[in-house]
């Protein structure tokens, strides 16, 4: 991980974020101007691909050189595989929810404020940027930047939860879309609730990592907990990359 120097790694993180931001803006434009499910799905896939490759570093699963099973590196690789398997399993929950959404809503969607949706989406996307920055910093032994970026990530994560639960949920209820009113409410609250629960567990994970980081338990060579927290956090972001168009952009308002 320390093969590239720190500034290059930071710059790559910024570049990927710029791509993600452009794609998100394009997505919003497409949804408003020419609502095409195919284009929206492709954009979501492209965004997810960028996060999975450049922020979650999926290639580390198969680019391993360590062969001694007793080494820290090898054990970290086993843990990495375990986490990815867990995410694969978890993805089936979210996939099932997406199936429920398309089965029950079809090509319609509830009249949610798309700009509000865009704002909370951006909050999560920016948090992924800082999460990547925090991990990169730790991989180069830069504890100061690690702590700063991690705190920003945490604040943005909490901001996302406040946005969804504190602002979006009450406004949906005000519009009459309550959990028990109709399937708009049922699916919306189930999807955002399940995702919010994952954000919450991610926040707890990050708090643990922050505390142990401040106590100096991680180093450039040994920080597999930081990497795991980052991968989990990005995964939750990837889920939202698909949930956002499914909830706010695809379909016509009825």
């Amino acid at each position, binding site marked *: 991980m320390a093969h590239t120097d720190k500034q290059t790694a930071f710059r790559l993180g910024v570049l990927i974020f710029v791509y993600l931001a452009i794609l998100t803006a394009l997505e919003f434009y497409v949804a408003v101007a020419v609502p095409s499910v195919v284009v929206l799905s492709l954009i979501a896939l492209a965004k997810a691909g960028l996060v999975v490759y450049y922020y979650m570093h999926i290639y580390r699963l198969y680019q391993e050189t360590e062969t001694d099973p007793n080494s820290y590196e090898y054990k970290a690789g086993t843990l990495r595989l*375990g986490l990815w398997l867990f995410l694969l399993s978890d993805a089936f929950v979210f996939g*099932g929810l997406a*199936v429920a959404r398309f089965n*029950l809503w079809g090509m319609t969607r509830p009249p949610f404020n798309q700009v509000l949706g865009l704002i909370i989406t951006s909050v999560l996307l920016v948090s992924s940027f800082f999460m990547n920055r925090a991990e990169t910093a730790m991989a180069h032994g830069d504890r100061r930047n690690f702590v700063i970026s991690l705190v920003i990530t945490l604040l943005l994560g909490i901001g996302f939860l406040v946005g969804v639960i504190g602002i979006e949920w009450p406004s949906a209820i005000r519009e009459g879309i309550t959990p*028990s009113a109709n399937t708009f409410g049922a699916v919306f609250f189930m999807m955002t609730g399940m995702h919010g629960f994952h954000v919450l567990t991610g926040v707890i994970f990050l708090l643990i990592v922050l505390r142990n980081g401040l106590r100096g338990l991680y180093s450039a060579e040994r920080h597999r907990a930081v990497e795991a927290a980052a991968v989990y956090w990005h995964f939750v972001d990837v889920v939202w990359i698909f949930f956002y168009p499914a909830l706010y952009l695809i379909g016509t308002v009825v």
Partner: protein
Amino acid sequence: MKKILSLGLVRGLLWQIAGTAAGALLVTGIRALMGLNPWGSFLFTEPAWVVGALTGVIAFVWGVGALTDWFKWALGEETPEHREDPPGWEKYFGVSLDHKVIGIQYTVTAILLLLVGGLFALIFRLELAASGMQFISLQLYNTLMSLHGMVMIVGILLGVAGVMNYLVPMLIGAHDMAFPRLNAFSYWIAPPAAIVLLSSLALGGFDTGWTGYPPLSTRSPVGIQMFFIGVWVAGWSSILGGLNLIATVMRLRAKGMTAFRMPILVWASVATSLISLTATQLIGLSFQLVMFQRLLGMGFFDPAKGGNPILFQHLFWFYSHPAVYVFILPGLGVVSELLPVFVRKPLFGYRWVAMSSLGIALVGFLVWAHHMFTSGMNEYLRVPFMYSTLLVAVPTGVKFFSWVATLWKGKIETPTPMLFVLGAIVVFLMGGLSGPPNGVVTTDLHLHDTYFVVGHFHDTMFGGYIFPFFAAIYYWFPKATGRRMSEKLGKLHFWLLFPSFLVMTFLMMRVGLLGMRRRIADYDPALGLDFWHLLITISAFLIAASVLVFLYNFFRSIKHGEPAPGNIWRSRSPEWQVPSPMPVHNYEEAFEVVGEPYDYGLPGSTYIRFNGKSH
């Protein structure tokens, strides 16, 4: 008394009771403060029971001590990699990190649950022995029938986990599973899950069958929530166990053990784990959605609110069809594993058999809607699902072909494990042949929800799981205890079980074809089925008698069995090249794989070589 309290299991149970009470009282208090009715028909209200059941499970796992190390890690403390277990029987009642201990914990828990599920079956089978209602109420019949299904399924899942946990690390030459703490956690959430599942009996039961279809499940008593939560938690046991197993096989294989030198049982375990890792989430989700529909009025499956009951069936069967492959693939792996040992010939078509497990698992993901031909789903879905279902016969046929060709002209020995292997092949063949009529749309429209399906299903479960499970126990019992089970009693077990089981399922199919519906408590005497039902019940009790013989043999042999310290089956597999019972950390010396695993009878062939250095 102090000694009993020091057992993890006892502490866990006490914690579970306290945790359930705490969670339920918390919700009750909140309801009282909100001005809602705080008490329900079973003391607490439904939300209180749901929260209580969940907090109870968490409390159990905490009380037993399965979370301690993780808690320490979160606080930044180190924990020792290995932990020595106390000698003697106590280690089986608390958290152990040794995969062999966990494997035995799983297996014994599985046997207990299978006995409970079997007991339920005996009760309602007695009721069905004659037409008219004899001695149980309709609601109790429904609850027992439904619980029989799910308790058996959970029991089988734990039994599968037991076999895989105990054997796979040994077969691949690992010290332990990849994540020993996760392994212990996966086991220890199963007992509280089983308790929650069984507690549905005390909370009004439920009448939906094991499938829990809405809208019926949205109107059942509170018991259905205990069913949902019990299955959901047990599902996590299966998910995390599968995760652990895949990681173990991918990361901890002995030197030289390439993919196509892995034992068939390892291939089968990976295929099974892929299913349990992924698909299980969807039965969990489908049950959660009904749970929330009941608690919060969310209208997922309520047509009045725009919901769709068919959606539940899609989510449910997306797991519950592949689930049967979770049950049978390890069993079929055991058959392929033991057959060459007792035929003294190489396994025919090793590569094809290895790939066929994965093939069955993958095709299994594409067939779920064959359970829904009569559900009212879109009609154009029927034919594709019919063909994908029939496609399963191809990889399954590969296995049968390999077994027959392996037996061909072999020097067949028939000690008890081999009897059960041969029994498995015959019974599973019956299950396989009675499958296509259910998978083909035209015949299924007639057979759906009849006893024919029950007969078919029990054939596949006994052939694919129960017979191989017994074979595995008879075969590896000496590995775990250093003693072997009695051959005489083993043969009695088999010859009591095998014919009565075949009679039972044949007659189940017969009464099904004659118009007997499944899941119902009573039938019209004019159908003329009383005699056949009586015979089915008698066969069921003979099966129960055979299981009693097995239990006696099992528990007696732990202490009094004939000593068997060596390689009594003349196996090539690595675990038999070291003394029995298996040493605590498995292999003192690491081994290297230098040949093919099943080349029995080929002069000069070797599978493994101990290379002296410990790893």
